[in-house]
């Protein structure tokens, strides 16, 4: 496949450290699928969670800088971590639609031209669905997942708030399931795939994370899933820490596997 698009790629902090798999499998797969990921020279952490209070400015500036660098490069911005995606997309939405917030941010940053939410933000999954197309992904598959029963775990950050993120139906998402089908696997639908794993509250209340993660995995296992895929390092951490019932992998890993480049990445 030739290069079909160049995009600004934001890996985020965790993908440089504990979630290298999510990053590296994603980079290599994008290459195969004709997407050139260009990482900005300098970026800062998104902050991990979006603060909904409309008087919070400083905590959203790193995202605005990132969005602006994509605008300057005249490229869409792609994130792969659910949390980064949530923060960056919500910030962009606020920059586009909340005039008071936008003006305050622009005055504070005092750049020559204001940023008004012009950048298109894609999650890596949206890039596969809307730019590459799942049918083209399917054609690039070298080692189909051969009917493997895989449960998609969306958690909360990938889908909600639905009206802001606009990624998929927040109560009945299909995007990861459709990817699994494209890769030759068999998606397993289970109701708790959009319920929270416990998130950052595991720092304060491990018991809550244990309960929530356990419920998610039990529900997936009861529905017949043999493994779960996620796009979020924190989800993966919580699910693995509190239940060993099912293997949890990043969606980029099964993508790389099906594209036949998993070994290449690990070399």
């Amino acid at each position, binding site marked *: 496949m030739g290069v079909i698009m160049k995009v600004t790629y934001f890996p985020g902090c965790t993908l440089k450290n504990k979630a290298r798999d999510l990053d590296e499998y994603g980079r290599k797969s994008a290459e195969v699928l004709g997407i050139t990921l260009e990482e900005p020279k300098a970026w800062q952490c998104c902050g991990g969670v979006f603060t909904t209070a409309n008087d919070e400015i400083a905590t959203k500036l790193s995202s605005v800088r990132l969005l602006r660098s994509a605008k300057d490069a005249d490229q869409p911005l792609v994130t792969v971590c659910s949390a980064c995606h949530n923060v960056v997309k919500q910030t962009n939405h606020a920059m586009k639609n909340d005039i008071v917030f936008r003006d305050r941010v622009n005055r504070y940053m005092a750049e020559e031209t204001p940023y008004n939410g012009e950048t298109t933000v894609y999650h890596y999954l949206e890039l596969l669905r809307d730019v590459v197309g799942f049918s083209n992904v399917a054609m690039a598959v070298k080692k189909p997942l051969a009917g493997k029963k895989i449960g998609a775990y969306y958690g909360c950050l990938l889908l909600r708030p639905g009206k802001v993120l606009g990624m998929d*139906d927040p*109560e*009945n998402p299909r995007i990861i399931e459709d990817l699994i089908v494209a890769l030759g696997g068999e998606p397993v*639908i*289970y*109701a*708790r795939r959009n*319920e929270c794993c416990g998130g950052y509250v595991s720092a304060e209340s491990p018991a809550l994370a244990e309960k929530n993660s356990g419920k998610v995995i*039990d*529900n997936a296992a*009861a*529905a017949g899933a043999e493994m779960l895929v996620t796009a979020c390092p924190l989800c993966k951490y919580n699910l693995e820490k509190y239940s060993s019932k099912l293997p949890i992998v990043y969606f980029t890993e099964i993508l790389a596997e099906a594209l036949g480049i998993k070994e290449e990445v690990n070399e």
Partner: protein
Amino acid sequence: MQRIGVFVCWCGSNIAGTVDVHAVAEALKTESGVVFSTDYQYMCSQAGQDIIKNAIHEHSLTGIVVCSCSPRMHEATFRKTAAAAGLNPYMVEIANIREQCSWIHKDMLSGTEKAIILGKAAVAKVNLNAPLTPGQSTVTKRALVIGGGIAGIQTALDIADAGFPVDIVEKKPTIGGKMAQLDKTFPTLDCAACILTPKMVDAAQNENIRIYSYSEVTEVGGYVGNFDVTIKRKARYVKEDICTGCGLCTEKCPQKKVPNEFNLGMDNRRAIYIPFAQAVPKVATIDADYCTMLKTGKCGVCAKVCTAGAIDYNAKDEFVKEKYGAIVVATGYNPISMEKFDEFAYSQSKDVITSLEFERLTNAAGPTSGKLLRPSDGEHPHKIVFVQCVGSRCENCAEKGKEYCSKICCMYTAKHAMLIRDKYPDTDVYVFYIDVRTPGKAFDEFYRRAVEEYGVHYIKGMVGKVVPEGKKLLVQASDLINGKQLHIDADLVVLAAAIEPDKSARPLATMLTASMDTNDFFTEAHPKLRPVESPTAGVFLSGCCQGPKDIPETVSQASAAASKVIGLLVKDHLTGNPCIAQSNELMCNGCSSCERVCPYGAITYEEKEFRMPDRTTKLRRVASVNPAVCQGCGACTVACPSGAMDLNGFKNNQIMAEVDAICKM
């Protein structure tokens, strides 16, 4: 020069409380054309009307201005008063100094000032008024009812009973509508079929009623008293007049895998089918989407087994043109799609069903022969959760739900819950509600019986998530009274889905030029005083097409609509509204602007010969208004670039005179 009388009404203290009525009468005395001015406590009373009549005689008035309430309230009253005194009723103008003045002002000074301005504007207009005479048109003594549910059937029966012929157009192969799918009806629990099917048979046997089943209205023209309607009779591939309804074809048809819409897809039917045993007309229909013969030309089993020879694979859609005096819309409702409410797992589990599906599951003629069995495994459910208001009262979800209350759900859920407990006392029933709304005769008592006699668990709170796991449905919900989050392992979850107007309503409204609200319910001419008439003359509303309603209310409205139709059809002639548009042909440049904006299709163009100044003649294209169709909205007068189009009673110079009178202040 007009001789105008001004009559200022106090309306008790309604007007006089904030408007100095004497000052208004005094101030208007000096206006051009005014020869008499007075005020009185209640101008609409007999004594008040007499003041007007006497003044007309004594002062030889040629026009009058009544400063009072909204013309919607008493314009007709004062026009009659004027007519009784020998004055043309269109020489009466109302200055609305109540709704538009006294009620919205707080101090006497500004209230009085504004009342005087409004009075002056009305006087300025009357100075330019001319007597108007309404035209007359004939009435076709036949009614059309669109939709053959309980609303349409009742309306048709009542019209037919009065001796007028009436046609029912029903898009499905049988009449009966939603009510035919119901099991029992609240609050008396009589079986829906037992009370509906006799009415269906009555309709079929009534010599004044003609049923066009499997048919749709495709075109409507004309106007009140004289509608021209085209009806498409969809090809059913079975000759309706020959088929005996024996049903042999529906047993022998080899195509067995067609989702049965009557049972909401919970079982299958054949490609040739009769929707249900009591269908009217009891005639088979071939579903062209599934019939092997129609698709591939190979089969023909039904034709072979039909002893009557009713099968006709070459049938085509037919179009019938018919004239009607009145049209009744009875297009009904449907439950909304549950697809976007998957927090309740409707798309994930067969055991999460809608209330209408539940009706079929408990109906003796349904897919389980009336036994309450789980759709997934056919087992008897022991714990059932009902969720109210799914998609109703939903302000945040315009793209999937409805902002309004669907009105019927509280009662049918109480009915379902009660019937389960009555038939299966070993089954626990939970109803999650936001409010229980039971404002109907014997309704609250009915709901209380469900709680007190039948032990249904009513829980104030909403369900947040349903998780299918194994054979159970884990329901996570709020119990607001006890301050708990509940977790119930249910066997069956029933969703009270919001209801919405049938999808056919919107295009039909366009054809009828009848107005709709943002939810696609037909708008009534007045929400309180004219609830069964649409604002379009000759178009009437029956049942859920106008708003959510239960069966008793639907039947009441259906009969009310019928009486309005009868009131129209008994007349030999209709008196029109003389305040209609009129085109000055000499000024008309034939641009069609008016034709394009006319919401009623009242304007056509014709080629007409005109004598030119040089005595030659020239053919010109000019607008012509059909006085029976025009409703006097005035849209054309605004669109007309040459000023040729004018509205009688609201002529451009009259409006400008009013504006001038106001601006002079």
